[in-house]
C-alpha cells in the first residue's frame, strides 16, 4: 500500500521528469537528485527523504512522452516510487521495464494526492474512495524481462547461453 504523493496531468514529458540540462549526469546512482527537478517543492521533499519508498505518482495519459533519456526512469526508480498512469509513452515504458521501475497502466484511475492506494493483481484499489480500477497487463515478452530482474541480468543470461565459450 502506498500514498499518492503527486498527481499529474496528461503528456508529462521526460523534460518534466528529468530536465535536459542535467543530462550530463548519467549514473543511476546520481540521477535521483534531479527527479522532477523543476517541481521544486516535490523535488525538495524527495531530496529530504520525506517521501517513503512505495509512494505513488498518479498520471493521466501519455506519461513519459518525449526523449529517450533513461535518466528519467532511473531518477524515479532511485526513489522507489510507483507510477500509475492511464497510458504510457513507448520508450519510457520500455526503459521502465528494463530498469525495473514499477509502472502500472490503469486507464480509468481516479485518485487524489493523499489517497491510499493498494495495487493488486489485475486491479488498483483506492482505499480512500473505496473505488476499484482495472489495470492493463504488460505484454508477456516484457514481463519476461521484469521476471529476470531487468534487462541487464536478462541480457547477461542470453549472452552466456547463446555464446557458451
Amino acid at each position, binding site marked *: 500500500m502506498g500514498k499518492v504523493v503527486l498527481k499529474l496531468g496528461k*503528456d508529462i*514529458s521526460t*523534460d*518534466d521528469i528529468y*530536465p*535536459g*540540462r542535467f*543530462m*550530463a*549526469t*548519467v*549514473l543511476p546512482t546520481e540521477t535521483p537528485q534531479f527527479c522532477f527537478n*523543476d517541481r521544486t517543492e516535490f523535488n525538495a521533499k524527495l531530496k529530504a527523504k520525506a517521501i517513503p519508498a512505495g509512494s505513488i505518482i498518479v498520471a493521466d*495519459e*501519455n506519461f513519459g*512522452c*518525449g*526523449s*529517450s*533519456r*533513461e*535518466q528519467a*526512469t532511473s531518477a524515479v526508480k532511485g526513489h522507489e516510487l510507483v507510477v500509475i498512469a492511464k*497510458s504510457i*509513452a*513507448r*520508450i519510457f515504458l*520500455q*526503459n521502465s521495464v*528494463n*530498469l525495473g521501475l514499477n509502472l502500472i497502466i490503469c486507464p480509468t484511475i481516479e485518485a487524489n494526492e493523499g489517497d491510499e492506494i493498494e495495487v493488486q493483481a489485475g486491479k488498483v484499489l483506492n482505499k480512500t474512495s473505496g473505488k476499484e480500477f482495472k489495470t492493463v497487463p504488460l*505484454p*508477456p*515478452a*516484457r514481463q*519476461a*524481462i521484469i521476471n529476470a530482474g*531487468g*534487462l*541487464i541480468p*536478462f*541480457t*547477461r543470461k*542470453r*549472452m*552466456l547461453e*547463446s555464446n557458451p*565459450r
Partner: protein
Amino acid sequence: MGMTVVEKILAKAAGLKSVKAGDVVEPKVDLAMSHENAALVINQFKEIYEGTGREAKPWEPSNIAIIFDHRVPAEGPKTATNQKLIRNFVSQHNIEKFHDIRGDRGGICHQILPEYGYVRPGYVVVGTDSHTTSHGALGAFSFGIGATEMASVWTLGVALNVEVPPTIKVVVKGSFPKHVGPKDLILHLIGKLTAQGANFRVLEFHGKTIQKMSTSGRLAICNMSVEAGATSGIVPADEETVRYLKEEAGVKGKIECVVPDDDAVYEQIVDVDVSALAPQIACPHTVDNVKPIDQVAGKPVQQVVIGSCTNGRLDDLAAAAKIIKGKKVAQGTRMLVFPASGRVFAQALDAGYIHDFMKAGAVVMNSGCGPCLGVHQGALGDDEVALATTNRNFKGRMGNPKSEVYLCSPAVAAASAITGVITDPRKGGK
C-alpha cells in the same frame, strides 16, 4: 496476407517469412547509434559482462555509430569527461563510424547518419535518441531506445522483444502553397493525431506530395513522427531515396528498395491535402497544441532559433536566408542559427547564406543540437518567448521552465526575426 514496409523489414531481420502487427520478434540490428549518452551505454554494457569472466566487446563495431552533438563543444567538465571516456572506448574497439567535435565531419546524429550513407532502405536502426525515427526517411525501420537497451544490442546484436507495431498509413496529396512545407505538414498532422495518437504505431507516408518531397523534407516529417508518439515514421524507399544516397551520401553499388504489399493491412488511413495548408505553429507546452499562424501572429518573440535535426539542413537555411537577406533582425530579438552538420555549414557558406544571416544580425553557431534541449547555447530568461524550428516545446525544454517555446518552419522563423513578432511569411512584415 500482405505486409507493410516495417513488417517486411522486421520479418527479414528476424529470419521469418512473414510477421504481422502484434508478433514479438528479435530483429538483427544493422545500425546502432548513440550520442553523448554512450557514456551511460558503456556503463550498462560493462555491467552486463560483470562477473561473467568475459571481456566486454561489442558484437560488431562496424554496426555502431557514435556522434557527439548534444553538448558540443562541452558545456562543462562533466560532459567533457563523458566525451573523453567515450573517445577511449571508441578507439579501444575501433568504432569507425565516430564523429567527434569537428567542423568538417561533425554534426547532429540525425543529419550525419543520412549524410554519410550509414542508413539504407530495409535496415533496422536503433538509436539512444527518440528522434531516431528520422531515418525512416530512407526507408529503414528506425526507432529510439534507452541506454540499457542499447547496451543489450551491443552485446547480442539484436533488439530483444520488439512487438511488430501496427501501421497508420498517411496519404498526402496536393502541392504546398508558397512558404508552406514539410514542417507545416507534420505539425498539422501531429495536431490532428495528438501527442499520443500514434503511440506504439508506425506512420507510413504515401501520396504524390511525399513522392515529390526531397529527402530533407522526408527527414523532417519522420523526425517529428515521434511527437505523435510513433515508434517510427517511414517513407517507402523510391527513386528519390536512391538519388539521395548515391548523389548526396556517396553510396556505391546497388540499393534495394523495400516497398509495402498492395494488400498490406493498415490499422487506419489518414488523408491530408496540403494545397490550402497555412503555416502551422505548435504553441506551448505540447507539440500537439497546433494552430494555423493567423491565430498566433503578432506574438512578440525574444529569441528565434533556426536549426536542429528537424530543420537545420541546407534547404531550411536557404528558405530562411532568402527571407532575411538584406533585412535586419528586429531590436529586442536575437536570432540564432545552427546548421545541422559541418557539411551543411560549409555548403551554406558557399551559397552565401551564412553571410546573409550574419549581415542581418543573426548569430551563427557551430553545428550540433545547440539550444534545442536547453543545456547550453541560448537558454531563455524568465518569461521569455522563443520561436524555433526545433521539434519540442515542452515546459523547460529550452533550459528554463518559466519560458515559452513556439515551433514553426524556417520561413516563419525568418519572417518573424525581422519583425520581432510571430509573422506569416506569406504576408511579410509590418
